[in-house]
């Protein structure tokens, strides 16, 4: 009777375009913001390019650490801050032992591993106790561990944990200073094998390390463990029935993420050249997550492409927003607040979109079920 074929696959170009826009609204919005802000800010293209290359080298590794928990269905790992703290503790020790340059960086990475693994295990265990609300829990864990970190660094280092050099200790004799200088380690990895193209310094070694991390993630997805993680991420119950140890798989994903975040933090800090002992890690989780989301990732899906697009767009906005804000309103603080607002706003929008999508899928499933039931009833009749 019905001659009109119901074909959802074939859409006219307009529908396709709106669909594309809806799925990629955050990156598109960011491209628009940047397109408006870049001319206003008045920065030269070569300056912008060199800034972005620097920031890409600084931040990409940290953002890559977020991918594996997303694959395991645990959402955005706000607990990556734990890895950052482990990296900082390792760097404090290394700078106290005065091991500088590349050996220092490598040693710091090795020392950070046990701390990261320990914290990752703890975080994974707690998150297993709070299934279904991993994100808010991992977010609170990062605050909680920050308290413990302060307890250790501010009170125990120098009193219980031996710190040799007074240059990094507070004048009172224990506790670490607000900033620990890494001057002898500064950009040692970035400068090795660096190439200069038209005034833009490209830190090749850093990019090789980042490429290594990308290859690791691609390889890891194909392993048995990686496949298990994806199964757990799809449906925990089905995965359990298939004989996968769900709890263990989830813990491993968090541990890997924490260890990678520790490495990422060390790379980040060697580029910066100093540690803000009590504040370096506090914002890092938020900025990394915002950058990933800007790249078009969502709470349940993220790729390496998202990481690179995100880091470029997000930091482009970060560079131009204060200057553009100052030019428009005559107050430089406006731009500073604007970029903080945008970072939080992006995370909010992404979370809302994810939750509404989840609900829509759920209600679609319900509608489908109802249709099937009606059909069955008809057949019985």
């Amino acid at each position, binding site marked *: 009777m019905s001659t009109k074929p119901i074909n959802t696959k074939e859409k006219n170009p307009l529908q396709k375009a709106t669909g594309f826009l809806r799925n990629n609204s955050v990156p598109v919005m960011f491209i628009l913001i940047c397109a408006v802000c870049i001319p206003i800010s008045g920065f030269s293209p070569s300056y912008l390019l060199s800034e972005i290359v620097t920031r890409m080298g600084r931040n990409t590794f940290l953002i890559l650490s977020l991918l594996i928990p997303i694959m395991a269905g645990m959402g955005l790992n706000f607990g990556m801050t734990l890895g950052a703290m482990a990296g900082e503790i390792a760097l404090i020790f290394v700078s106290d032992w005065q091991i500088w340059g590349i050996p220092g960086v490598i040693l710091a990475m090795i020392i950070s591993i046990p701390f990261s693994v320990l914290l990752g295990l703890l975080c994974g265990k*707690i998150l297993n*106790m*709070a*299934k*279904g*609300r991993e*994100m*808010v*829990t991992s*977010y*609170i*864990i990062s*605050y*909680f561990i*920050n*308290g*413990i970190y*302060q*307890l250790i660094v*501010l*009170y125990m280092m120098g009193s219980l944990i031996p710190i040799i050099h007074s240059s990094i200790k507070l004048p009172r004799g224990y506790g670490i200073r607000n900033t620990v200088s890494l001057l002898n380690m500064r950009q040692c990895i970035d400068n090795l094998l660096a190439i200069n193209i038209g005034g833009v310094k490209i830190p090749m070694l850093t990019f090789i390390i980042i490429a290594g991390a990308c290859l690791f993630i691609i390889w890891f997805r194909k392993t048995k463990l990686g496949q298990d993680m994806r199964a757990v991420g799809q449906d925990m119950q089905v995965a359990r029935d298939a004989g996968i140890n769900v709890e263990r798989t989830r813990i491993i994903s968090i541990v890997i993420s924490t260890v990678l975040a520790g490495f990422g933090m060390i790379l980040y800090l060697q580029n910066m050249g100093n540690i803000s002992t009590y504040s370096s890690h506090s914002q890092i989780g938020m900025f990394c997550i915002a950058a990933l989301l800007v790249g078009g990732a969502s709470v349940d899906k993220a790729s390496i492409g998202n990481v690179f697009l995100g880091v470029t767009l997000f930091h482009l906005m970060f560079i131009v927003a204060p200057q553009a804000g100052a030019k428009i*309103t005559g*107050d430089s*603080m*406006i731009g500073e*607040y*604007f970029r*903080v*607002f945008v*970072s*939080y*706003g992006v*995370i*909010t929008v992404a*979370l*809302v979109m*994810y*939750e*509404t999508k*989840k*609900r829509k899928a759920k209600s679609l499933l319900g509608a489908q079920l109802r249709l099937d039931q009606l059909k069955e009833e008809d057949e019985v009749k």
Partner: protein
Amino acid sequence: MNDQLEMNQYSIRDRIIGFAKNFGLPRLIIAGFLLLLFIAAPLVGADFLTQLTNTINRFSWNAILVLAMVPMVHSGCGLNFGLPLGIISGLLGATMSIELGFTGGFSFVIAILIATPIALVLGVGYGWLLNKIKGGEMMIATYVGFSAVAFMCMMWLLLPYHSANMVWGLAGKGLRTTISLEGYFDKVLANFLQINIGTLSIPVGTLLFFALLAFAMWAFLHTKTGTAMTAVGSNPTFAKAAGINVNKIRLLSVVMSTWLAAIGILVYEQGFGFIQLYMAPFYMALPAVSAILIGGASVNKASIVNVIIGTFLFQGIVTMTPTVMNSMIHMDMSEVIRIIVSNGMILYALTRKTEATR
């Protein structure tokens, strides 16, 4: 005979263990810790009554902010990490009241009058959003609060405020980070009916104001709508079947919570004596959340008693640790202890099994 005695002992032991389980080990530790602090205070030379005064004072400042948690917990929206949204309405009320030239105690009334419609509008929007994302409330609430604070940071600079007591002296525009309330509503409630006995002073006015709101909340929860709210929180499907409009009730709870947060920050400011703008509201949700949890509430159950006990315990620890710790070991670890205690408590509540499967 002996057997019976043993059995008796067992049952007492069981009862104690059962009580500890019910009450929650972290709560027991915190209560014990505070008790220890109160005992230790006179021993290290701190005046007990001064300490008690400080604790009661801080209780009176913060209690309403903690009370703001109750409606949303009841309706199943979880802990209101989006408290900064309500706080911002309160801040807008306070600054506008001063800008319009009101002084003294009257400026407090005007601040409440201005804050109320703002809180209602923001609350409706916030509640509408939370209705769209049932199940993910807490995380989104956190970020709604953060975004709102960051947005208002821009607004405090851009809005056309001119009152000389509030804007930066040199530029003549843009609000200062802290604004003194002297001459406005500084201690307007606290000085009302204040009782002074030696070093002990009790801000009866503020406590009465809290009691009034707490009683109103208690009474509301016993009305038809209040019972419906509890029903929505404990079993939304059942509530829907019983003919309750779940979304409407949830919206109402969010609006109430936002409004209470607005009033709460005004009461906080009148006690503290300053308006704090910009990033100050950022972390104000966490102490309120952990206070109600310390008082025995969980992610989906909270009462007025939880509010009172929790605020007292939390503020007790906040005020006592610096003095006692300082004189005991000459180290000011209070900030670190506060971070660990408050976030540890939230973490504990989030990981309870019974509540995880809601």
